[in-house]
C-alpha cells in the first residue's frame, strides 16, 4: 500500500472513525480490512432505514455510504444528513453501481463529498478516504 509505513499518515489516521454503511457483506469485509489496516477505526452498518440514527449515535469522522440500501436509499440518507446542523459538514463518500450522470447529479445535489462507482480500486477508496478526512480535519 502506498501510505502504510508513512508516519505522517499513520499519525493522521489515529483515532479517526469511519462508518461504512453497505449491505454487501464481502465488500464490507474488504473495505473494513483495508481501512483498519491503515489505522482508522472502522464501524459498519447494513440497513438504510436506521442508518441516520446510527450516524447520529456514533458520530463518525467520515461515512462511506452505499446508494442501494434496504429500507432507505443512500441519496435520502445524505439529504437528511445535510439537513441537520450536526451532520451538515460530515464528509460522505458515496459508493454506487449506478454510474449514470443523473445519479452523480443527484448525489451532488444532495451534498455528497465524493462519489465513486463500483467496481472501484482499493487505491481509489483509500485516496478518497484520506483526502476527505485530511481536508475535513484541516477545516475543523
Amino acid at each position, binding site marked *: 500500500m502506498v501510505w502504510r509505513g508513512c508516519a505522517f499518515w499513520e499519525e493522521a489516521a489515529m483515532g479517526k472513525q469511519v462508518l461504512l454503511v453497505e449491505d454487501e457483506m464481502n465488500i464490507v*469485509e*474488504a473495505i473494513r480490512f483495508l481501512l483498519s489496516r491503515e489505522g482508522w477505526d472502522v464501524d459498519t452498518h447494513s440497513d438504510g432505514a436506521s442508518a441516520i440514527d446510527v450516524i447520529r449515535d456514533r458520530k463518525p469522522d467520515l461515512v462511506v455510504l452505499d446508494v442501494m440500501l434496504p429500507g432507505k436509499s443512500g441519496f435520502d440518507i445524505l439529504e437528511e444528513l445535510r439537513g441537520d446542523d450536526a451532520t451538515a459538514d460530515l464528509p460522505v463518500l458515496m459508493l454506487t453501481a449506478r454510474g449514470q*450522470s443523473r445519479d452523480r447529479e443527484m448525489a451532488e445535489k444532495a451534498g455528497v463529498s465524493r462519489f465513486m462507482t463500483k467496481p472501484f480500486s482499493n487505491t481509489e477508496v483509500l485516496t478518497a478516504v484520506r483526502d476527505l478526512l485530511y481536508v475535513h480535519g484541516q477545516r475543523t
Partner: protein
Amino acid sequence: MAREGMTGSRIRERRSVAGLRQADLARMLGISASYLNLIEHNRRRIGGKLLLDIARVLDVEPTMLTEGAEAALMATLREAATQANLPAAEAERADELAGRFPGWAEVLAASHRRIASLERTVETLSDRLTHDPHLATSVHELLTTAAAIRSTAAILAEDPDLTQDWRDRFHGNLDQDSRRLADSSRALVQYLDEGQGVEDAGASPQDELEAFLTDHKFAFETLESGADTPDSIVTKATALRSNAARHMARGILQKVAEDAAQAPRAAVRRAVKELGPDPVALARRLGVPVPMVLRRLASLPELNLGLVICDRAGSLLFRKPAAGFVIPRFGSACALWPLFAALAQPGRLIRTPVVQLGRGRAAFDCVAVAETVGQPDYNSAPLLQASMLVLPAAAADSGEALEVGASCGVCPREPCPGRREPSILTGGL
C-alpha cells in the same frame, strides 16, 4: 414516363447495387421471380406493403424508389430543416442547396438520418436501463459482485503480510463471489438472448404481449368471425411464452370478441365510410359507448390509428402505436397526455390537438375518455380505465395544440410542470 412510373427501374438499379439476383430478391419478398421481373420492367404498378418490403430489403427510403433519389433527399432535408426550427424561407431553399452543393446536401441528409436512428437507439437503451427493473437489478448485481472481487483480490495480491486466517477468509469470499458472478452473468446473457437486440427485448410479459399484438397487426379477423376463440389464439401464439403474457392477451382478446359482438367490423367500416373516424358520430350511429368505438376504430388496420389504455394508477395496459406518436415502452408516459386528464373527469369526452415533442413536432388529434370498470359497490371508489385514440393531424402550430412528450427521460420540453426527471436529450446521459 411519369416519375412514379419508373419505380420498377429504380428497384432494378438498387437491386444491382445491392448485388442481389432477381431470384434472390423475389425469394426474400415471397413473390415469384417472374412477377418481380414485370415490376422491374414497369409493367406492374407497385405500392403498399410490397413496396415497403422492397425498400426494407434494399435498405432505401420508399420515396427513393417511387420518386427517385432527388425526392428522398429533398424530403430528408426539409425534415432536417423543420426539426432545426429553421425559418420557412430558409427551409424552402433546400432545392437550391441540393442543386448547388449536391455532395454537402447528401452528407447533411445522411447525418440527419443517422442522428434519428441513434436517438431511437439511445431512447430505447436509456428507457431499458432506467425502467427495466430486471436489467437494472442484474447490472447492479454484476457491478457489486465485481467490486467485491476486485477489492478482495487486490488485498490478496498486494499484501504479503496477510495472516493465514485473513487469507483463508478472503479466498472463501472470492470463491463465493466468483460463483455469484458466474450465475448472475449467465442469467443476464440468457435474459438478453431471449430478444433480438435493442428493439426486441422479448423479456417481460408486456414485451411478449406487444410482440404478439404486433405480429397480428392488432387485428384478429378469425376471432371476430367466430372461427377462433381467445383461448385457441393464445394457445397457438408462440410469442406468448409466460403465463402472465398469456393471461393479459386472453383479457385483450376477450374484449375484442365482446366489442365485435356489439359493433361488428363490417358495420363499423360502413359507418366510418359515411361519417369518417368521428367517435361521437359513430357511437350514436352504432348505439355503443364511445370507449368501445375508440377500440373498434383502432382495430381497423386501414385507418392506422393509435390507441393507449391506462388504469386508474396511470399504468399503460394497452399500447397500439400510431406513426410518429411515441409511447414509452417502460416506465411512465408524459403526464400531460389527455389520457390522464380524462381520468379526472370520467365520462367526459376530451378532444385535443396535440404536438408531441421529441425528434420533431409531430401533430395529432387525440380523443380521450375514462369509463368505470368492474361492478359498482357501496362506498367504494370506482375503478377507472381511460382510453385515448391517436389520429394523425396536419402539422399544427403550437398556439392551438397541447405540447406533450413521450416520457420525461426523452422529452426536450423545458420547463415543464409535469417533469419527473431530467431529460437525456437536454442533460445528456
